[in-house]
């Protein structure tokens, strides 16, 4: 059994990972030096976090606008509660749908309970894709709206690790 990190080292590691994985041949060795642990312990901790679902993958966030994905539409639909799970699962698998969530209605201001995000290069292409998706799933007549984004004001990752003082207080 590999000896893992203490609480403070684990928190430090999480903070470092929020900034990203170092671009080094042996990134976990770099992190290990910074938190004062072995490469094995750091890698094992990262694997455990991954296995437990703390993060989905060690991957990449692209600035989709910079890569030409400028048409960003939020499709919102008012789906009867008894079939929202079935419709959500189906639309979640549809081509071009990046995110699919159920959210609460807020009547009378907001009657929609199913949200799909669709990103594409051209607005027309996204509209066609969504029309086709609605038609194929027999949803063309459900109340729906398409909200295209026209400007991005802020796009950044948050910081979620608790302050070190909280860990120290429990430690």
């Amino acid at each position, binding site marked *: 059994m590999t000896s893992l990190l203490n609480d403070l080292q684990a928190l430090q590691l999480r903070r470092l*990972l*929020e*900034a*990203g*994985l170092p*671009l*080094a*041949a*042996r*990134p976990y060795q770099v992190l290990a030096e910074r938190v004062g642990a072995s490469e094995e312990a750091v*890698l094992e901790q990262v694997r455990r976090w991954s296995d437990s*679902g*703390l*993060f*989905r*993958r*060690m*991957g*990449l*966030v*692209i*600035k989709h606008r*910079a*890569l030409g*994905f400028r048409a960003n539409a*939020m499709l919102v639909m008012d789906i009867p509660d008894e079939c*929202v799970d079935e419709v*959500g*699962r189906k*639309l*979640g*698998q549809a081509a071009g749908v*990046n*995110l*699919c*969530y*159920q*959210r*609460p209605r*807020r009547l009378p*201001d*907001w009657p929609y309970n199913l*949200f799909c995000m669709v*990103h594409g290069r051209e607005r027309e292409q996204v509209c066609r894709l969504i029309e086709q998706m609605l038609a194929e799933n027999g949803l063309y007549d459900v109340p729906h*709206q398409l*909200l*295209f*984004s*026209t*400007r*991005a*004001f*802020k*796009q*950044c*990752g*948050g910081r*979620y*690790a*608790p302050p070190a003082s909280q860990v120290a207080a429990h430690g």
Partner: protein
Amino acid sequence: MDDLDRRLINRLQLGVPLVRHPWQALAEELDADAAQLRERVQARLDDGTLTRFGPMFDIERLGGAFTLAALSVPEARFDRVAEQLAAMPEVAHNYRREHAWNMWFVLGCATPEGIAQTIARIEAETGLPVLNLPKEETYHVGLHFPV
């Protein structure tokens, strides 16, 4: 951007193996040089094509909370309200959308209480009601952009 850049970005969006030499593993897969792959990623981070490279955290698992929220902002005040939100560290994204609810943003906080407090603060500072739409069910999360 050349063919290797494209293959690299598409591959990295799927996630890299959690091994001691991840770049060596990718280099073998992509038939490229490991150091060159790292240089390419660094160049794309530097030019802003890529936002970050690292773990994609599940915020709820971190004990944190997330919500999607919207405001209906009078046109004349739009930029000012956008500035107010941009100054709040809890606001992770903010988009203008074509709708009466014209400002859509994501809040990320360390705790669920933090979300409620942040919404109260936005309502107090802007004088506008916030439409709070936390997710109730996730059917698909797969932000993949083939380039």
